[in-house]
């Protein structure tokens, strides 16, 4: 009789092995320790830490949050303590609770900003990948403006490429006509991977006040409502590039993870779900083997890109 064995869930992302493909997304997991107080975050594949910039940032005025049907809008605006504090305070604290390579999400307002931040963090042994955020919809004069133009996206990627040998994953915006054009530009500029999608630009209006709910008027829409859009863009991108794709956007269950991997994702980030259920990522990690078994999958690598052809 054949012995029942748990399906293999390890994947290799840009040369670094993950025990499983589940990655809490940047901006929904801080620098890890809010969640480390709840469960052992070493059960995760890894996580992408809060978008970090050259200087400390308070972010946008409040309200920064609006609820939507099956989702939410945020306009936090890259609040973070700045790269030096991340290096001197956040990463030493993280080392006490997390022993795996972490994904460093970095952002900026100029190419120099990205280069500075990456160079500052390059010597940190715990950083396994840089996720270059060229897709933040909530800041002016940077962020998403790099991710909506193929030449600007390529220039950021190639400039960061020169200051680090760590794998570079370009995080792309869905707020473009054809995401594959940007993805291919990043690939040509030296990116080792593509992650997508960042949030969709959206808004809500307070009917009593007759004004936008969000102080900044617009913000980034995330949550289960965007999952089909994210899936479509992961599918298109995985077909267009040869480098690994990290899928995200509305993922809330092990089934969603599998669906995204079938569309070509090597790993999958979990965003808004962490905010409504602090145990969401852990639950997905734990449910994944059982759902894979039910589908007759012995090694998760079998399903990556299964729906592409």
């Amino acid at each position, binding site marked *: 009789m054949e012995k029942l064995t748990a399906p293999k869930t390890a994947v290799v992302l840009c040369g670094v092995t993950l025990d499983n493909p589940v990655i809490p997304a940047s901006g929904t997991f801080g620098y890890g320790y809010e969640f480390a107080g709840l469960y052992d975050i070493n059960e995760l594949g890894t996580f992408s830490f809060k978008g970090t910039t050259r200087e400390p940032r308070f*972010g946008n005025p409040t309200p920064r949050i609006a*609820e*939507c049907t099956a989702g939410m809008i945020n306009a936090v605006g890259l609040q973070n303590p700045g790269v030096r504090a991340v290096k001197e305070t956040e990463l030493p604290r993280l080392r006490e609770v997390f022993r795996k390579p972490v994904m460093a999400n970095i952002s900026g307002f100029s190419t120099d900003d990205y280069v500075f931040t990456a160079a500052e963090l390059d010597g940190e042994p715990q950083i396994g990948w840089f996720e270059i955020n060229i897709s933040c919809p909530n800041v002016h004069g940077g962020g998403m403006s790099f991710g909506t133009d193929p030449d600007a996206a390529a220039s950021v990627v190639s400039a960061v490429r020169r200051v680090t040998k760590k794998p570079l994953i370009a995080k792309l915006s869905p707020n473009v006509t054809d995401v594959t054009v940007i993805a291919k530009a990043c690939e040509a500029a030296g990116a080792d991977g593509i992650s997508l999608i960042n949030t969709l630009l959206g808004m809500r209006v307070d009917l009593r006040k007759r004004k936008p709910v969000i102080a900044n008027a617009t913000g980034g829409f995330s949550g289960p409502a965007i999952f089909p859009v994210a899936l479509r863009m992961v599918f298109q991108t995985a077909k267009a590039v040869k480098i690994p794709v990290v899928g995200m956007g509305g993922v809330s269950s092990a089934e969603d993870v599998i669906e995204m991997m079938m569309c070509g994702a090597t790993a999958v980030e979990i965003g808004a779900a*962490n905010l409504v259920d602090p145990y969401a990522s852990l639950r997905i990690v734990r449910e994944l083997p059982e759902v894979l078994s039910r589908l007759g999958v012995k090694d998760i690598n079998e399903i990556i890109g299964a729906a592409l052809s």
Partner: protein
Amino acid sequence: MKQGLFEITENRRIADNVYLIRLNGDTSAVERPGQFVNIRLSGFYLRRPLSVCNLENKTLTLIYKTVGAGTLALSRLAPGTALDVLTGLGNGYDLSASGPSPLLIGGGAGVPPLYWLCRELVARGAKPSVVLGFNTAGDVFGENEFRRLCGNGVTVVTVDGSAGKKGFVTDHLPSGYSYFYTCGPEPMLRAVFNAAATSGQFSFEERMGCGFGACMGCSCLTVTGSKRICREGPVLRKEEIIWKN
């Protein structure tokens, strides 16, 4: 913080658009007055943060105003319904600062957290006085409960004068208090800030994503740097507040 399933044991209207709900479950993470819980509701994506009005015998009492579709849906849930609740959120009030005769100032939906605070202060031997502000008589709740704790030390104020004294809470602040604690709409908090004779603590409201410090959705600037209303708040000391605008 703890996530747990709580059973509704009671959910009834106590004033116009104001409901009292009692929840039974593991309350071990709830530490002090001024903290809040965050309730998941079927059909709504984000949780609803509600301040704790009372904690007795593993039963949480919350009082909430139906301000939108979510709280309206909550008001329609029957006893016996199970709710997914995050408990023990926020810093809560620091009771050690109260002195012998603290003043508690509540406005509308900001009244509830002051009840548990008042109970705890009385239990510690303090003699609180209480000013409760509402818009109109139909909005008033909690007066008898506070009177049981503080007797004649309770003043009810309505803007239109249809119950209690007419005016704003700041028109009827007693004298001789040692410290104050307040919770209510922001215009009231600002008025209290300007009118108060002593130091005190303010409980703030903000639209939240997660309620436990992960999303940075509810950050505010203070004298001592950026704070998350859900984590380092919702209670801020008078000396650290920087008003928006």
